[in-house]
């Protein structure tokens, strides 16, 4: 059987894909065999061209798996290869499992049932809210919330899971020692506390744009299903959804307003047969997971109905679950701007509405 050091070394050679790494490793068995191999030996492997062979020989001398392990250890990470018992089973079942994973945090989290939550980086407040709620619900049922730690939906999915005390897993498109995007440093720290951060890229890899599709396949590959919250027409989240389908996993989508450009992607998935999801039970049923918590979202009006005065009720009735502009509200309510603004603040403090940038207000 192959040697894990060899896998780590091969993974450090740029331009070698997961599939090819496994192929090479299965022939040379261990590092010394690989280091001794001549170009003729390499050319024997199907699919290795003259050029690629030269490339491998050039890098073969430079990569040092032992130094890499030390470097990872310094960053607090451990390295798990496909050979290890800790390697997540679901991920090993996909067509091209990454041979090497760098893990920061508790690798045992990867053994949990997992659901991926992905979406646009430029999320609406609706999308952010939904991502947070679903992540919270899933995490509180010990289901690992997997996402990519990008801005927008990803960040809110991790945040929801962290609030519930985890578990959550972030899959990076860069080396584990690089924080990207930089503002997520706090989220990263919190994830390590209650979950783990993984990547297939060697230490020090920069977050280049072509790393992200490879990262997306790990997100979907780790998970039983992928939930797309908000996605524009062309979006990385749709790539993740495609990977999930290829890997034979479920795809779920959250519906949005037909007016919003950020609903397009999710709606297209629904048209193509993705399951429309209204609450977390829809996901659990589809995945045949036992619903351990009966989740009931209390209808907001009832809880607060008693404490609202007439003005507040009037305004609340004029609002909707999609954004309404304050100018519209002013005309419809026939109140002065001062009154409306004061009512909005009170409703907002009662947690019934959310006021968005740009003068929009929305029920929540």
């Amino acid at each position, binding site marked *: 059987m192959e040697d894990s050091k060899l896998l780590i070394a091969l993974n450090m050679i740029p331009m070698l894909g997961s599939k090819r790494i496994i192929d090479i490793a299965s022939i040379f068995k261990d590092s010394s065999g690989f280091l001794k191999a001549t170009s003729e030996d390499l050319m024997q492997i199907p699919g290795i061209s003259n050029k690629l062979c030269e490339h491998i020989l050039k890098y073969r001398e430079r990569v040092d798996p032992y130094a890499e392990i030390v470097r990872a250890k310094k960053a607090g990470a451990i390295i798990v290869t496909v050979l290890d018992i800790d390697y997540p089973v679901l991920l090993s079942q996909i067509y091209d499992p990454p041979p090497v994973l760098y893990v920061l945090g508790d690798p045992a989290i990867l053994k949990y049932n997992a659901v991926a939550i992905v979406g646009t980086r430029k999320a*609406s407040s609706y999308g952010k809210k939904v991502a947070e709620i679903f992540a919270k619900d899933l995490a509180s049922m010990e289901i690992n919330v997997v996402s990519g730690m990008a801005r927008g939906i990803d960040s809110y999915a991790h945040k929801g899971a962290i609030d519930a005390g985890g578990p959550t897993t972030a899959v990076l498109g860069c080396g584990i020692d690089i924080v990207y995007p930089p503002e997520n440093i706090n989220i990263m720290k919190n994830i390590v506390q209650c979950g783990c951060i993984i990547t297939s890229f060697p230490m020090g890899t920069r977050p280049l744009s072509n790393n992200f599709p490879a990262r997306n396949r790990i997100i979907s590959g780790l998970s039983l299903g992928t939930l797309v919250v908000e996605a524009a027409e062309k979006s990385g989240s749709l790539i993740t959804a495609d990977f999930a389908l290829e890997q034979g996993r479920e795809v779920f989508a959250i519906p949005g307003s037909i*007016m919003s*450009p950020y609903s397009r992607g999710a709606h297209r998935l629904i048209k193509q047969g993705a399951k429309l999801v209204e609450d977390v039970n829809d996901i659990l049923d589809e995945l045949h997971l036992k619903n351990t918590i009966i989740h009931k979202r209390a209808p907001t009006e009832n809880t607060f109905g008693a404490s609202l005065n007439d003005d507040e009720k009037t305004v609340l009735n004029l609002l909707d679950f999609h*954004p309404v502009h*304050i100018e519209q509200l002013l005309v419809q309510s026939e109140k002065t701007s001062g009154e409306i*603004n004061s009512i909005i603040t009170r409703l907002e403090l009662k947690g019934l509405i959310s006021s*968005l940038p*740009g003068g929009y207000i929305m029920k929540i």
Partner: protein
Amino acid sequence: MLALVKSCTIYGLESFLVDVEVDISSGLPAFDIVGLPDTAVKESRERVRAAIKNQNFNFPIKRITLNLAPADIKKEGPHFDLPIALGILSATEQLPAESLKQYAVVGELSLDGRTKPVSGILPMAIEVKEKNLKGIIVPEENVEEAAVIQGIEVIGVNSLKEAVDFFKGDLNIKPVRLSNEKDFSPESEGDFSEVKGQENLKRCLEIAAAGQHNVIMVGPPGSGKTMVARRIPTILPSMTFEESLELTKIYSIAGFIAGRSGLIKKRPFRAPHHTISAVGMVGGGRIPKPGEVTLAHYGVLFLDELPEFPKEILELLRQPLEDEKITISRISATITYPAKFMLVAALNPCPCGFYQDPFHECSCSPRQIHNYFSKISGPLLDRIDIQTDVAPVKFSDFESSSVTDSATIKKRVENARCIQLERYKGLNIYYNSQLTPGLINKFCKLGRAEKLLLRDAFERLKLSARAYNRILKVARTIADLEESDNIKEIHLAEALRYRNLDKYYNNLKM
């Protein structure tokens, strides 16, 4: 022979009397000017020589020494032409010296001897009155500007000859009298009733005007930010006579008044473009001139596309916003100009304008948006009490049935200002935006319910500590508009709404 003519010079916003002393003695023909003259003053030798000759007087072929006293203040500008010419004529006995003593003389001469208007006439007239002179001789075009000052004779002359004839007593020029009721302010800026929809924005601006709060407006391109801003001076309270005089003085020195008359009665509206230089914004230059912040004194300084302004220029605004004046130090002088303006800034929510618009996709990257906002520094934002949205054009269809005009709003604003003036009597502040943290504790007392509301708001809306004082000041103004002695829950709740920019910032963080 020796002769003396009185004239004036400008230093900052003030004017000083200057003695133009002329001595003519025999020797090699020469014409020297001493007493810290600048280039424009030195050049007046050539103009004066030609003017005297062309008006059929004799220019002495002798040694002429001219002193501008006091000799330690730098003298600038071409307005010494006329006094120098009169001095030479007096020294050569072409003009009786006695009559000159009662008047100050200013004016530029052309080569043919006709007078040309100069800037800074109003402060000079004020100085002439303070020094108890009988009157001031000015170029005809400047007459109405100087005539604002009562109690001195303002004599307008068209040429050197007219001035000479006046002093000889051959020509009787009637002093110009002008009632200061006359108003030359630029034509009307429009009216708030012309603004369709935007009720929320109008309310914000009313509050801003009532408490002299600085405002920042965020809105998509083409939503009418400039149009509304232009109308803000129409809802600000009328200027007092002293304010008008001070403002007119500034415009007089900046040279914006020549040829027009009377006091400026309307509050100024200045909208410099974002390519403006530091000197253009705060004033200065080789010959110090007031900048935009001073030209906007008692009025509105409107900065459209705020993030497009260079950061250094925006940081320059911090002193005037804090101290209501700007001090510029140059080699030649340190000058302080007043700069008590209301800052109105406008910006798009992002470079493309659609960030956070639920109905359009924004094409900017998060980094672009971050860079766009980060141009505006925290200390600058701290000085802006009210942050508001401008609704996209599509919402202007939602026009309410009751359209208020500027006059109605102005009445409410003036009323609120009166309450503030009364309350802050003897404290050396005049409106709510000037409240210091100590005074906020004194004048913005909150009841139990209000304190609870504020605490709740800070927890739920994740307000920054910076927002605290801003919210209280604005709430105080809202209470004043409602003529309420105490800040009530409703006022505080409304004030909490005017901090939308913080929301954009919070959104960016995740």
